[in-house]
C-alpha cells in the first residue's frame, strides 16, 4: 500500500518533497567549503551520487512501477534497476512484500537514527544564522518556546557599531513581536493561549494599541497563510522585523528564526529579497532538522 493512499494521511502531492531543496542548495548555502568545492570540483564518484539521488526519491513514498519511476528520473529502466540492485544489496532499499514496490529499508532506518543521535539543532541553526547574516547584513536570531514565552537563544555575530534587537535569554512578546506571532501560529493553541490572553489583558501591553483577541487571531491566520510574520514597529518603533518557523522531526515547530532592521530599507517587503532569503534559510534548516511535510 502506498503511503499517500492512506486515508489517515494527507494526499501524496501535499506530502511534499520539494525538488527545489536539492542537496546542492543545502550544501552550498551551508558551508563555504562546499561552495568552494562546487566552483573547483574535486573528483568524486558520479555513479554514487546518482545512486544517492535515486534513494532520496524514495523518501516521500515507495515506488511501485520501476518504468514510471525511470521516466520520472529520465533514465533507462534497466539502468535504474541496476542502481536499485546495489541499493538493495546495501540495505538502503528493500522490496515491499505486499506490493512488490521499492521502499527505503533497514539500513536507511539505522543511518537515520544514528544521524538523529548526532544532530545538534542549535549548532545547525548557528550555521544558518551566520549565512543569513552574511547575506543580509542585518542581525539574525533564533528563538525557542519556554514557559515564559519565546526566548532568543542564538544571535548571529554582528560587527556593526550599534547592536539592536533583543538580548539572548530575554523573553519576547508573543502578541507584539514577529517572533512571538510565529509561535502563536504554529504551536498548539493551549500552549500559547495563556500567554496571549495575559498580554492582551495587560493595560500597558498591546491592547493599548487597539489590538484585541479578534484582531490578533486575524494576524495569526495571516502568518499561517504567508508562512512568515512581518512587522513594523516590532518591540521598538522604527524597527522592521520578520520571522519564520523552523520545523523538526515529526513536523512540529522547533524554533523561530528572525531578522531585524533599524530603518526602513525596502528590503522587508513580503515579496522582497530579505523575505526570500529568510524563507530559504528556514526551509533549509527545517530539512536539516528532519522536517518532511512542513517544508514547502
Amino acid at each position, binding site marked *: 500500500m502506498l503511503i499517500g493512499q492512506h486515508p489517515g494521511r494527507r494526499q501524496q502531492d501535499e506530502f511534499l518533497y520539494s525538488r527545489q531543496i536539492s542537496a546542492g542548495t543545502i550544501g552550498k548555502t551551508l558551508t563555504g*567549503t562546499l561552495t568552494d568545492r562546487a566552483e573547483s570540483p574535486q573528483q568524486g564518484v558520479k555513479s554514487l551520487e546518482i545512486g544517492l539521488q535515486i534513494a532520496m526519491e524514495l523518501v516521500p513514498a515507495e515506488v511501485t512501477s520501476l518504468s514510471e519511476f525511470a521516466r520520472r528520473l529520465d533514465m533507462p529502466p534497466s539502468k535504474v534497476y541496476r542502481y536499485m540492485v546495489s541499493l538493495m544489496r546495501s540495505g538502503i532499499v528493500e522490496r515491499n512484500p505486499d506490493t512488490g514496490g521499492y521502499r527505503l529499508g533497514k539500513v536507511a532506518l539505522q543511518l537515520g537514527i544514528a544521524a538523529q543521535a548526532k544532530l545538534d539543532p542549535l549548532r545547525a541553526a548557528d550555521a544558518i544564522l551566520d549565512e543569513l547574516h552574511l547575506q543580509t547584513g542585518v542581525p539574525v536570531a533564533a528563538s525557542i518556546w519556554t514557559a515564559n514565552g519565546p526566548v532568543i537563544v542564538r544571535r548571529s555575530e554582528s560587527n556593526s557599531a550599534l547592536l539592536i534587537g533583543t538580548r539572548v535569554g530575554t523573553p519576547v512578546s508573543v502578541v507584539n513581536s514577529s517572533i512571538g506571532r510565529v509561535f502563536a501560529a504554529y504551536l498548539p493553541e493551549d500552549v500559547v493561549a495563556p500567554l496571549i490572553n495575559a498580554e492582551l489583558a495587560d493595560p500597558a501591553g498591546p491592547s493599548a494599541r487597539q489590538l484585541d483577541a479578534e484582531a490578533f487571531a486575524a494576524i495569526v491566520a495571516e502568518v499561517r497563510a504567508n508562512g512568515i510574520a512581518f512587522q513594523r514597529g516590532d518591540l521598538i518603533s522604527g524597527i522592521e522585523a520578520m520571522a519564520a518557523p523552523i520545523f523538526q522531526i515529526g513536523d512540529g515547530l522547533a524554533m523561530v528564526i528572525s531578522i531585524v532592521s533599524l530603518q526602513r530599507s525596502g528590503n522587508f517587503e513580503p515579496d522582497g529579497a530579505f523575505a526570500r532569503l529568510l524563507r530559504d534559510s528556514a526551509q533549509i534548516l527545517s530539512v536539516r532538522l528532519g522536517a518532511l511535510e512542513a517544508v514547502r
Partner: protein
Amino acid sequence: MTRKPSHTADTGNERVNAVQGVQSVEIGMRVAATVALSGPGGMALNDIAKATGMAAGKVHRYLVSLCQEGLIEQRDRSGRYDLGWAAIRLGLGAQLALPHIRECEPIIHDLQVEGGLAIAAAIWTDKGPVIIRKAESYGQLMMDTRIGVPIPVGNTSIGRVFAAYLPTAMSAPLLAAERRNNMPPGDSMDRGQFTSLLKSIREHGLASQSGDFLAGLQALAAPVFDERDEIVMAISMLAPANSPALSPHGPNARKLLAAASRLSRRIREIAGEG
C-alpha cells in the same frame, strides 16, 4: 545472468559489476555505514580508510560524493566526517514505511494536551530502545528527550516495557551490559525482583517509574502491538517527580493506555487493509 554476486570484486573503477549492480553505490554505502559508527566528533579520513580497508585517496573520492549529496558532512573546524542531513531524511523515509511510526504522530500530539507532560515514542533497535518521536512539555522544567539516542533497558519505563514483552533473548544482552556498567535495573534490584517487576508490567500493561533514567522525573510507559501481537513501540509520559501527574491509576495513565491501544488497533486495521 547466472553468475553469483561477488562482493569481493575489484576496486570500484568499474561502474557496473557482474550482477548488474553499480558497485560504487555499494562501496559508498559501506563508507557511510563506517562513518555512522563514529562517536560524537565524527571520523577522520585516515580512520575511515583504516576501518574500510581502502586507500585514503580512494575513500576521499567517495566522501566527496557522499558530501555532495548530504549523506555525509565535513566538520568545518576539525575536517572530520560525520553523517549529514540526507541520512536523517533517508531514515525518516524508511520510518514512514512502518505503520506504527506513521500513525503515532497524531496520537502523541493528542496526548500532549496536559501541561507539564512530555511525550515520547520509542522503537526497539539492536542498541536498545530509541526515541523516534516526541512532544515537548513546554513546562518550566526542561525535559527534552533526545531523538535517536539509545536509552537503558533496565531502569527506564520505556526499556522495561520492551523487556516485559520482547523475547528475553533480545533484551538479555543489553541488560547484562548495563549490569556490567554498574547500571542495574533500579536501585539494588536483583534478578528475581526484576523478573517479577516485568510480570507486573505485563499484568497492568503499563510501566510506572520515578527517578526514571534521570533523577527528578517520573514516567509511565505503555506498549503498542502490531497485528501479530508483537511489541513494536512504547509510548511514554514524563513529568517532574514532585508533580502528582503520573499516578499509575490516575487520569493520565488512563489516557496513555487508551492512546497505546488506539495505535495498536490502527496498526491491525492497516494490516487488514493491506
